[in-house]
């Protein structure tokens, strides 16, 4: 073992400059970096919970028939996996953790516009999470409706849906507050010279995301309130026997939950847009078009929710319109992919861990996006609707896309805040294991879906057995890679090699301040004189 260097970080960094001590210096801190780390460990903790639940689902599906659990336990399992991953990990994930950690520094600010509100949003998030977890062990047991809480089942099931829905409502409120805070911060607190045209693309993506959070989340709020009203007061607003219409529930739910997909993916695209130029040693290609496409995705993505409902009995005209609009969203997404690839062209590419995650993002997101078009076309959707194809597609976009971008961001930015870095070789091995395991796991699912295996069933026909076994083996490879990633990364952040202020040679502002950053970020308010990817302007060789 090499001698471990545990000397504390330099005085004046945000790690030791605080009035409080111990845990209270974290959970009551209004410093955006401390709140960012609070968020990071909270969301990442829930991510690991979700991973364990996902592995259990795969073990159950390893062979036909009952493997380790019965149907009711399976229903609860995929519901809780979905709720935890969607509402507790990936929706608050980027904004809460890396948004908080990096965004104020990237725009040259000391903190966000409302630091106390920022802390409050973390508390709300934790309160919502605790309520959701409580719902698993009280009342009628964990919810078994799927994360979509579709009526009429969610009105009638005896499981603890009301409490879980209330928890999600609280988490949604936290998300709204973060959105309001970030839009205000980006409008009001940019340093001198930080024009809109010089904003790093990660900030632009957070800005677009924050608008989606503000405009879409309230609809989720009212939808969840209505589920509670249906269950507790018996309002019957979605109950056909009393004049209600279950389709109205689906509309309301997806008016939020489709834009929510862009809450999950837009910041990930921002991370990729920041990583790729640094590791290709080239300014980003098509800055303006990437900005435009972020805003276009946020806007157009709010109008496509109906593509989740092609088989629901909606009118044919509605299906055509929603299908058309869905194809429109593909355009800005493709613009981004082309711009990233053009940035790589003739770049001086260094294949370090953050870059490997970024490159695999492009591939996995493209597969996810293109399979999304199969689902977005009404005719083909009828064939694959509610099959494992959808599960595979969704995980390609959200895990292969957002998840891999999240790992990339961890390797890219966490050393900045810890002052130490991970070992490169194990990080690359971990990435390779995850990439291979991921594709085995989810590509098998897409093939299964095309062959007709429905989703959310705990049993299946014997002819689906080989691919299900393959998929489960893929999940173990992925998990092995994840364990290696965690051990290497967190060991490195504690004991690894020290890093200077700019280990990667980035031109955005966070690399211009000491490592780890001081409490107030900048000794004096910076004056920005160059763009975020203008390496020559930043004096970086």
């Amino acid at each position, binding site marked *: 073992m090499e001698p471990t260097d545990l000397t504390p970080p330099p005085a004046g960094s945000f790690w030791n*400059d605080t*009035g409080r001590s111990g845990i209270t210096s974290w959970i009551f801190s*209004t410093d955006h970096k401390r709140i960012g780390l609070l968020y990071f460990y909270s969301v990442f903790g829930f991510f690991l919970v979700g991973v364990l639940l996902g592995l259990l689902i795969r073990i159950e599906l390893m062979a036909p028939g009952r493997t380790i659990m019965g149907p009711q336990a399976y229903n609860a399992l995929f519901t809780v996996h979905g709720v935890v991953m969607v509402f507790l990990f990936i929706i608050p994930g980027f904004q809460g953790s890396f948004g908080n950690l990096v965004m104020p520094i990237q725009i040259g600010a*000391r*903190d966000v*516009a*409302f*630091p106390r*509100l920022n802390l409050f949003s973390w508390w709300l998030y934790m309160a919502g999470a605790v309520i959701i977890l409580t719902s698993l062990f009280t009342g009628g047991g964990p919810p078994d409706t799927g994360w979509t809480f579709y009526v009429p089942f969610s009105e009638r099931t005896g499981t603890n849906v009301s409490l879980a829905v209330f928890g999600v409502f609280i988490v949604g409120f936290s998300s*709204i507050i973060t*959105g*309001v*805070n970030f*839009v*205000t911060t980006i*409008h*009001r*607190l940019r340093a001198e010279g930080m024009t809109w045209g010089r904003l790093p693309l990660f900030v632009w993506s957070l800005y677009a995301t924050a608008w989606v959070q*503000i*405009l879409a*989340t*309230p*609809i989720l*709020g*009212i*939808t969840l*309130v*209505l589920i509670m*009203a249906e269950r507790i*007061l*018996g*309002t*019957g*607003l979605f109950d056909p*026997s*009393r*004049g*209600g*219409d279950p389709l*109205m529930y689906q509309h*309301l739910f997806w*008016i939020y939950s489709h834009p929510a997909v862009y809450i999950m993916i837009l910041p990930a695209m921002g991370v990729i847009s920041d990583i790729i130029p640094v590791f290709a040693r080239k300014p980003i290609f098509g800055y303006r078009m990437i900005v435009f496409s972020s805003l276009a995705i946020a806007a157009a993505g709010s109008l496509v929710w109906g593509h989740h409902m092609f088989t629901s009995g909606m009118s044919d005209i509605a299906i055509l319109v929603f299908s058309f609009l869905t194809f429109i969203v593909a355009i800005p997404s493709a613009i981004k992919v082309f711009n990233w690839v053009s940035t790589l062209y003739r770049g001086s590419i260094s294949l370090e861990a953050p870059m490997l995650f970024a490159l695999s993002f492009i591939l996995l997101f493209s597969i996810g996006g293109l399979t999304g078009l199969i689902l977005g076309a009404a005719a083909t959707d009828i064939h694959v609707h509610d099959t494992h194809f959808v599960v595979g597609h969704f995980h390609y976009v959200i895990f292969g896309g957002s998840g891999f971008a999240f790992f990339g961001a961890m390797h890219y930015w966490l050393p900045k805040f810890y002052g130490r870095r991970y070992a490169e070789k194990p990080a690359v091995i971990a990435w390779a294991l995850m990439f291979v395991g991921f594709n085995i796991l989810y590509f098998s699912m897409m093939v299964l879906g095309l062959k007709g295996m429905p989703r959310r069933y705990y049993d299946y026909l014997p002819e689906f057995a080989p691919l299900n076994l393959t998929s489960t083996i893929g999940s173990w490879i992925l998990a092995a890679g994840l364990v290696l990633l965690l051990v290497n990364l967190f060991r490195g952040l504690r004991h690894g090699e020290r890093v200077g202020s700019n280990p990667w040679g980035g031109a955005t502002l966070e690399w211009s301040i000491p490592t780890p950053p001081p*409490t*107030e970020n900048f000794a004096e308010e910076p004056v920005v004189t160059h763009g975020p990817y203008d390496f020559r302007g930043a004096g970086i060789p």
Partner: protein
Amino acid sequence: MSHTPPKDHAGAKLGMWLFLFTELLLFGGLFLLYGAYFARYPREFAAAGREMHLGFGTVNTIILITSSLMAAMAVTAIQRSGRRLAVYLLGGTVLCGAIFLFNKYLEWSAEFSRGIYPGSPLLATVPPGESVFYSLYYVTVGLHGLHVLIGGALLTVVAVRVGRGTIHVGDFAWLENGALYWHLVDLVWIFIFPLYYLVL
């Protein structure tokens, strides 16, 4: 905190306006349901709407508009250093809110005694569209009532802080934002009142 950043009033107001957007959208979901179900059950909605107590609705509208006026006047008062006047006006606003809720209590009691409440045996026998109307009415007005409560609590805190002088002519963003919130409560009611009491 080791430093206090200079206060940014424009930022505080921008944040509040964004938050008010989200509140509008929250109610927007219910108005959307109203629109969809009204298109499906125009006759039933009209029949049920005629059963509403127009008197209660009208009185409550007048009360809320008056309260909003007083909240706006409180903002002007503090700008002219009329601290005591601002406290009185805020007190008047909160009092109006309380009267509004008391009226609501009377109105709902009357409805309940006629057997009109969500899940009641009577509503199981009326045409489905009417039951939808009443359920939507209770959810919408109930949620609005909750906002009256929150707004009242908020303005009470603001009034106390004005009285203590922590909100003053140099820094009254809290008062302005509190009043903005109250106007939102008022505004939502301005939509609820015609939709449920007048147009049908």
